[in-house]
């Protein structure tokens, strides 16, 4: 078990997302002096989950960009292993695979949303996300995707595929700011 896992305030980071977004989150966690245990692949991360034996982080980040097929199930496993933790996913699966978001998941869909998230202090985040409505999707209003460079010529992904139930909330920039600034 990673040493950081013994700390209930540790942060889990599965770095299978866009590199720039992952670096942004790591830099933010470093700046906030967070105890981070990170993994570069989903399988070792899954082994970490099953070996946790009741110890859990209060915040978990999962990058979606490079997860393929059944690897997306890691989102569900994290929720099952650490049911009380706040789970933040960022990016979108590279194959366009859909991901069923259940309760307790915050989705930072693009670079702007990741950037906004990282403008908060960790203390603020820990103080607010526990009260946040379940399963939110956070996106900027200009539709730019996280770290994907130019969107010109890129076929647009049907956002509804990521929201099969249609029940998730898409926040405006103002709503997001209000949510994150709430103390």
């Amino acid at each position, binding site marked *: 078990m990673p040493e950081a896992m013994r700390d209930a305030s540790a942060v889990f980071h599965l770095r299978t997302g866009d*590199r720039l977004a992952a670096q942004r989150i790591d830099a933010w966690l470093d700046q906030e002096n967070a105890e981070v245990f990170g993994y570069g692949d*989903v399988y070792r991360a899954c082994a970490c*989950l099953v070996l946790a034996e009741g110890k859990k982080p209060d915040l978990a980040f999962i990058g979606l960009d490079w997860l393929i097929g059944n690897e997306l199930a890691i989102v569900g496993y994290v929720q099952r292993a650490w049911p009380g933790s706040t789970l933040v996913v960022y990016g979108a699966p590279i194959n366009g695979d859909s991901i069923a978001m259940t309760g307790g998941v915050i989705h930072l869909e693009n670079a702007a949303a990741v950037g906004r998230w990282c403008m908060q202090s960790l203390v603020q985040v820990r103080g607010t996300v526990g009260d946040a409505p379940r399963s939110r999707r956070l996106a900027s209003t200009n539709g730019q995707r996280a770290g994907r460079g130019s969107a010109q010529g890129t076929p647009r992904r049907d956002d509804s595929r990521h929201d099969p139930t249609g029940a998730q909330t898409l926040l405006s920039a103002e709503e997001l700011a209000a949510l994150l600034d709430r103390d």
Partner: protein
Amino acid sequence: MTGGLDLPMTTPSRTSLVTRVIVVGSRRLADVANAACPSAEVVVVADALAAIWELGRRGGEVVVLPLRAAARLGDVLAGLRDAAPDARVLLTCQPADEPAARAALPHGATDYLIEPVSPERLRDLLEPDRSAAGRAMEPAPGLEQAHGIEPVRLGGAAQVMDATELAAPRVAPIPIESLTEVVMRLTEGPAAVLVRLAELARTTLGAEGIVIELDGHTARAGIARDADWKLPLTHADAVAGSLAVAGAPNAVHPESKVVTELARLITATMREAAKRSELVELAWKDDLSGLHNRRYFDRALDRLIKMAADRRSRLTALLFDIDDFKRYNDRYGHDTGDALIREVAILLKRSSRVDDVVARYGGDEFAVIFWDAEEPRIAGSSHPTEPVALAERFQATIANHHFACLGPTAPGRVTISGGLACYPWHGHDRVAIMFAADQALLAAKRTGKNQILLAGADFPAPQGV
């Protein structure tokens, strides 16, 4: 038999019985595991990730993992080892995938089995102690004939042996499933078929090692050691290769019926595989240019995109055509137009890298897939520039080439216009990638020709606008 060649056995020696087996993705494999180890609980899970979860949460001594079920095998094995360091991880694979399975042994796999897996072979690995005991009770080689043992039994039904059977000499039945597999997969080509035939021969003859050399191909099965005897394989009364056998029961010798029939089966199957291979080649080849045709290109692009996704690597498609090709056709005739296409195809092949897929897409359109044969890249890597340079090099090669078919009256240089599109930046499947490349090609045409544009770039304004 584990399918390993001259590798050390890594199966841990243990006395504990197997109580829980986790099988990934295959109901049929689970049935085999149940037959091999009836006292164990056999759990089927959907994928490798679920296996790690199940293994870590509820435990288990053995994980049976088909090679095809793990796209990122190294990561999967590391995860399984982390979750349960003492568990045995048994891979199953097609004969043609044996090298990949063998390569996985140093990375955490305990052993591997060639498909189709029989309960007997799985039990050898699930309960090594029992198998070892069984082997210890076997009479010494050479006693088979004295016991009147028939070397080959027809019918491939797997049976659970009792203690009496364990004490008897082990002679494998003809693996009818393996024969079916060989026939069903003839289109994989002679080299892959010969690998399957070698494994089939080893199992059928009960040999320790087999080497078949035929029609320029060589395939091995079992352990590597000097052959006890060698049988020439003939085709049309001429020697076309050989079957070398090591460690077979004494009842199996070059003159025995099973061996001569097996030799006929091997040569006939390989002949058929060669014919099929020729037909496949014809189906995928463009007659005029000698390049692959669009059907092949589409299949290759589908396959390579999937591989790129698995390996987190990039891939670039180039689509281009000859500028004003109709003009050449009208002025010089269709024969010259055909010759022009052939010359462009030759230049394209010369300018491409070994692994690039080059095809005639239709008419005067050509397509190339540039892909990374090297290690996967990290997620979020920057936009590729190398394929752009390759495409520009090819464009310059065409522009500077003197096309003999056009003679001295050629109306200036032959030029091309093209579009480049990259996975994952411009699409996640073949249709999206080719659409993006086609859009870039159209933009190149609209904005002056004789250029190759990258999809998604800021296209220059059309000429005259």
